[in-house]
């Protein structure tokens, strides 16, 4: 329950912070931190335009996409306190329920019959496929390290003891953050602000969405960022009591958000054709984590 509230609060600010950091880095004042929320509320109030090619798939997809992200949010724990739902293997459920949202959003993009949206859909499917193994191996390593297969038990049993485990936590942060970038189609995988449909991934998939549906999709994106941020926080807070861990949560989320802002300000996007290889590198990084876990457990003889 605690994690749910914290994630909701973090989600409200996360994208605002990114935008603010980006504006400041380019020498502008930038909009208020809550501007993305206002945008979403404005969208919720608007009417919609549907393409004449589309069918019911296009109309149900944003809802299911949003629901899948909300459902994924419910299994994320916060340190010692469980998520709303917590069970053995919940991270598998987490990844697969997000996949349902992805499935629906991909076919809804193809429902418009637009060549651009097909392009985005094709890229999204490929990239998310390559990002998933990294997540599963990361979670597998944590499961191996702690002997649990449950988000909450894994994270709360994660003791930062040796130097290797610090290295593991940092590598884990890297992997989770990069997965978050892939899932949200941000730099360096995708640049949501380029105004050329040929070079976009996620944004081009939702070209035809408008009104309430677009609002749902955007909200889901904000939530996703905060969810992955919460997972990163969980790597560190372990056994800290709440009076330390809650401030730590916000600090880490803030650092992540501004980090994303900085990356987007000072880095160019990768070449689209090399993205897939880059994403697959994450899997090797998580394999490193796996070997680190083996080292800690002394399984190398």
């Amino acid at each position, binding site marked *: 329950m605690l994690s749910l509230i914290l994630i909701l609060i973090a989600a409200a600010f996360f994208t605002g912070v990114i935008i603010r950091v980006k504006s400041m880095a380019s020498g502008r004042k930038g909009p208020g931190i809550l501007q993305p929320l206002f945008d979403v509320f404005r969208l919720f109030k608007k*009417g*919609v*335009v*549907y*393409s*004449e*090619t589309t*069918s*019911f*798939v296009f109309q149900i997809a944003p809802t*299911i996409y949003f*629901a*899948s992200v909300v*459902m994924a949010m*419910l*299994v994320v724990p916060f340190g010692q306190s469980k998520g*709303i*739902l917590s*069970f*053995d*293997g*919940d991270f*598998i*459920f987490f990844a*697969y*329920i997000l*996949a*349902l949202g*992805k*499935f629906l959003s991909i*076919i809804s993009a*193809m*429902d418009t*019959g*637009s*060549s*651009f*949206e*097909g*392009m985005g*859909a*094709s*890229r999204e*499917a490929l990239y998310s*496929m*390559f990002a998933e*193994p990294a997540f*599963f*191996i990361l979670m*597998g390593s944590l499961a*191996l390290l702690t002997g649990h297969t449950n988000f909450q038990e894994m994270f709360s049993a994660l003791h930062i003891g040796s130097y290797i485990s610090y290295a593991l936590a940092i590598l884990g942060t890297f992997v989770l953050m990069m997965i978050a970038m892939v899932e949200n189609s941000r730099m360096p995988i995708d640049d949501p602000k380029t105004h050329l449909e040929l070079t976009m991934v996620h944004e081009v998939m939702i*070209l*035809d969405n408008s*009104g*309430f549906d677009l609002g749902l999709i955007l909200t889901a994106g904000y939530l996703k960022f905060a969810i992955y941020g919460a997972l990163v926080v969980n790597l560190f807070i372990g056994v800290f009591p709440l009076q330390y861990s809650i401030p730590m949560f916000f600090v880490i989320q803030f650092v992540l958000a501004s980090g994303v802002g900085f990356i987007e300000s000072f880095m160019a996007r990768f070449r689209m*054709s090399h993205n*897939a290889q880059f994403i697959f590198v994450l*899997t090797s990084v998580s394999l490193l984590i796996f070997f680190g876990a*083996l080292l800690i457990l002394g*399984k190398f003889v």
Partner: protein
Amino acid sequence: MSLISAFIAVPVLAILLIPFLNVKGKGIVLFAAIVVNAFLSGYLALQPLDGQFLEFSFPGSLVTGPVNLRIDALSGWFILIINFIFVTGSFYGLFYMQAYQKQTNNITLHSIVFVLLHTALISLCTVQNSLVFLVVWEIMALSAFIAVIFEHGKMATLRAGMNYLIHSHVSILFLMFGFIWVALKTGSYDFNSITTYTSQNSGATGLVLFLCFFIGFGIKAGFVPFHTWLPYAHPAAPAHVSGVMSGVMIKIGIFGIFRVITLIKADYYTIGLVIISFSVISGLYGVMLAIVQHNLKKLLAYHSIENIGIIGMGIGIGCIGLGTGNYLLASLGFAGGLLHTLNHSLFKSLLFFTAGNVYQATHTVHIDHLGGLIKRMPQTTILFLIAAIAISGIPPFNGFISEFIIYSGFYYWMQGSMIGPLMAIIFSVLALVLIGGLALLCFTKAFGIVFLGNPRQKLDHEVKEVPFLQLLPLYLIAFLIVFIGVFPQIFMHALSQPVSLLAGLPAISDMPFPEKTTELLQPVTWGIWMFILISLAVFGFRKLVTQNRKASVEPTWGCGYIAPTAKLQYTAGSFVRPYSKLFRPFLLSHKTQKDVEGIFPSGGSYETNSYDRIEKYLVDNPIAAYKSLLGRFLFLQNGKLQFYILYGIIFIVSVICIPLFYDQIVLFIDFIKQI
């Protein structure tokens, strides 16, 4: 006993009756025979699932020895799956075959072999005598062959049929080798002699014997590299036959592997590792090739290979659990494998049946020629979508449940393993995740291109939904798919008997299986229910908020381009292009390209076809080499009668003379040995 006589009498009666009826009558008799037999065998199959063990003994003949029929929980589970798919499949087939009702003789034959196929498959699950088993196996293989070549006017169909026939016989060769080996050593054809023989001998014997059976059954099941018949036979057959073949006939291979595991006493740990390696390769290879297929049914056929891989992973984990004496691991693995067998038979047959609907309506299964069917065939579309989500292993449908159990098996195996198994686990998990992701890519492609967007080709006939009665069995399957996804515990309960049989658990009361899986699956079910509730809530909210809003309809945003045509849509080839560029080393694709030229260019074209690399190196190249070797002796076959008579004379003379020279030859060899 009388039930079994009835079980044999029904198909015999039906087969005798079918030739004398008109087309409609044939269909009805076919369906009735299958339903009656399904009830008879289903009644017998339900009892072992409830804990009873049925055994019947027939005197048999002098050659076979006594023929035992045993229906244990494993047979029961498979019989029920076979029955369900056959009943739905034959009902669907009644309507699907209406387009061919002028070919009376052909339909007679088809109906007969369909009944035979059903009877043979069910008998295979019960017969415990290897000689009779092989005979029934052959009946199954031949009747499936005839069912596949229904449209034998087409050259491609005939070739696919021959391909299947040859593969089946390679499979039966391996099985025969294994059975004869055991029969030679023990003098009995009964399956139990496999157990006695292997438990008396060293581990290596059991392992080699297992490999023999594994290859034999693996060819039927479609494990890579024994899969090469599947992508030809499935697309060539009529939709209900491919649904039944992919749904249950290849599962008889899986059944065989399960059965052999219960019989052979060998080093299960090694067996488990062998099965897992084959399965990982099958899963990945199957889905990798599925993505680049442009023929919808061929794509589905490759997905069968992938799902066989997933089932195999479950079996492998189960064997490892047996090998290490970890009953919980064994239960998880076998439960995952058995449940995925059921799941795959459901969604794969549904996919083939819907593909059949598409073929009926549009007369093509080439993905790139289709599009926009969602508006003309909404019900088929929804059914296909359900199956597509289920086969990608995504909640809230059934594919997720079995994959979840298999994942749990892997992560459970991880605890306390050493470095070797850990590497196996991590790469299997990696493979399983990649399979899931690739399946998602594949089915978004298939669904998106076939059903969504605008039609890519103008068809000269009206495309319309098939009649409701034809859709009825499809709805039934879809209902089960959803039902397993939402209430998996019921099926886990039904699985407790087969799993405890496989895991070799001493008594039901000692079983960790039911409690552990309920513990394991109950929260997953809650998650699925919660997800459904959240979706409904968001839907409701959306409806409430937007009901008074204006919704206008405009053309798709074309980035300023105002004359879009259906040709501008993304095609299947372009959708998977980034993927096929990355995976080029594993794939073989041919491009045929015609460039546009001139000031007013026209008629440019681009087409890609993919081919199976393993098939090229394992089947095509050896055959080509063999052919070129035989080609050297082609001069013998010169078409002149005199020469053939000469060959005959030479043969007879040599047959007569060799015994005369035999002693001399022996002397000569002895002489050489002395030197």
